[in-house]
């Protein structure tokens, strides 16, 4: 797995990008140096039992990794843990564990790659886009609203990513109306390419089908409720495709994942 750290990391910035979506920058030199795109960290949002806050750490993908020792998280406020995160003032420290899990494998760069993100699944895809640098790729992003499109554009433009952007939004404003898997299917027909994807489970299931049909491989980043993040508790099970005959077989999203090849997973 490589090195894993638990560090008190100073929050450098914690900014609301739009209603309910925040970007947090942290000083975390060890983690930044060891991490690769697709890996995640676990953030402790609570403190001592009675003093309050949640018990378990919360998992977040690494959204940006930079060589000057910073990491970023892009997160959506869902419940108590992310609400607490949203209220953290810059200057304070958060205890972060990471980097964790298996990230994207983009060593064997093909001629062409398609990056596919839906909603907050954007978080790790920006790190990947950044790391892929000027390799030939297209970035497919499916937003719900035009506001999300704006946020995406602002984020991607901060990176040196130079590939083509293909945008959809559910409201059809500022981007093609519909789901991002629509244009993706078209692109795959025109030019098959390996896929990297993160987003809602239904989107990923569709990506898996498209990949199979196009005869390309897809790496997808999955989510699961997690307790330890280290492979010890077996909370974060995802059923493997292999388990069909002999009963189900599970993998750990935190350890064997969060990035899986689509064909490994039972959808």
């Amino acid at each position, binding site marked *: 797995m490589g*090195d*894993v750290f*638990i560090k008190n990391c100073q929050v450098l910035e914690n900014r609301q990008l739009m209603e309910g979506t925040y970007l947090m920058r942290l000083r975390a030199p060890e983690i930044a140096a060891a991490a690769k795109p697709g890996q995640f960290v676990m953030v*402790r949002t609570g403190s*001592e*039992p009675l003093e309050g806050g*949640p*018990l*378990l*750490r919360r998992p977040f993908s690494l959204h940006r990794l930079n060589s000057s020792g910073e990491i970023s998280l892009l997160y959506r406020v869902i419940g108590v843990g992310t609400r607490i995160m949203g209220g953290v003032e810059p200057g304070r420290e958060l205890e972060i*564990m990471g980097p964790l899990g298996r990230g994207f494998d983009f060593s064997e760069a093909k001629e062409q790659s398609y990056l596919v993100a839906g909603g907050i699944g954007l978080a790790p895809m920006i790190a990947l886009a950044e790391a892929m640098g000027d390799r030939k790729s297209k970035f497919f992003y499916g937003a719900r609203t035009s506001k999300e499109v704006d946020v995406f554009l602002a984020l991607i433009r901060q990176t040196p990513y130079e590939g083509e952007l293909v945008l959809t939004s559910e409201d059809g404003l500022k981007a093609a109306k519909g789901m991002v898997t629509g244009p993706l299917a078209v692109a795959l027909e025109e030019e098959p390419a390996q896929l990297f994807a993160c987003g809602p489970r239904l989107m990923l299931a569709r990506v898996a089908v498209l990949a199979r049909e196009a005869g390309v491989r897809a790496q997808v980043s999955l989510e*699961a*409720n*997690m*307790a*330890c993040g*280290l*492979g*010890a*508790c*077996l*909370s*974060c*099970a*995802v*059923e493997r495709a292999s*388990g069909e005959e002999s*009963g*189900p*077989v*599970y993998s750990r999203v935190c*350890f064997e994942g969060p990035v899986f090849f689509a064909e490994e997973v039972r959808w």
Partner: protein
Amino acid sequence: MVTQPDMRVDLGKLVLKNPVLAASGTFGYGQEMADFCDPALLGGVVVKGLTLEPWPGNPPPRIVETSAGMLNSIGLENVGLDVFLKEKLPWLVERNVTVVANILGKTVDEYAALAQGLGKADGVAMIEINVSCPNVAAGGLAFGTSPEFTAQVVRVVVQAAEQPVMVKLTPMVSDITAVAEAAVQAGADIISLINTIPAMAVDLENRRPALKNVVGGLSGPAIKPVALRLVWEVTRAVDAPVIGGGGIMTAEDALEFLMVGARAVQVGTANFVDPRAALKILEGIEAYCKEKSIQDLSTWVGSLKID
């Protein structure tokens, strides 16, 4: 002058180097958390519950957080006895870890077979019997809810095992002392408690159970007061040594269990919150002993004063 306190724990047939164990199911096979917690430094590592055959476990979601606690329904996913002996145990033995094997059978015979398989293994210091499994032959209630079934399981395991045998009690009974007494009479060397409390959570928005398995086991700080009470009752009822746990997050929590009468503690959910938790608890106990000039931790055990 502050000297190093004696932290050893005398369990009769076995002496632990210190009183902090990692609880079954919360520390994997010792290897997973090794980056943060050297398992050899602990009083012992109780490995994930073993069944005779490999077991896939329950479909997800398997955990959910609750107020000061969590529910799990892992469903005993484990590699099975053979793979454990061949692939997991050697790593632990090599590092001099005090290994406690937690076993669970669906029938009395399976318990016996597990004990036999482990009995031959070098490097398993102790066997912990998990009696929380539904006793299919007896209508689906857990073995551990009945003194008779518990005694039955203990008897066959004690007979088959070479190691000291510890029984881990289920909290959800009306009289824990009856179960503990039955276990000791059947030959158990040590009692450990508590296992998780059967519980449930739902997802209001989706109108569904939060766990796919509907019911799971509650652990964490929420259950500590229940665990302390059960340890208190059992230590007063039986002479056998007791290892206590349930919601231990800090050294103070551990010291409370010891004060109430436990000779050692098991740290569970805390390992998820912080994989260094067990070590920190151990260090905290040591620091407390020094501060209070406790030369021998065993003098602290059961030191609770009642008027």
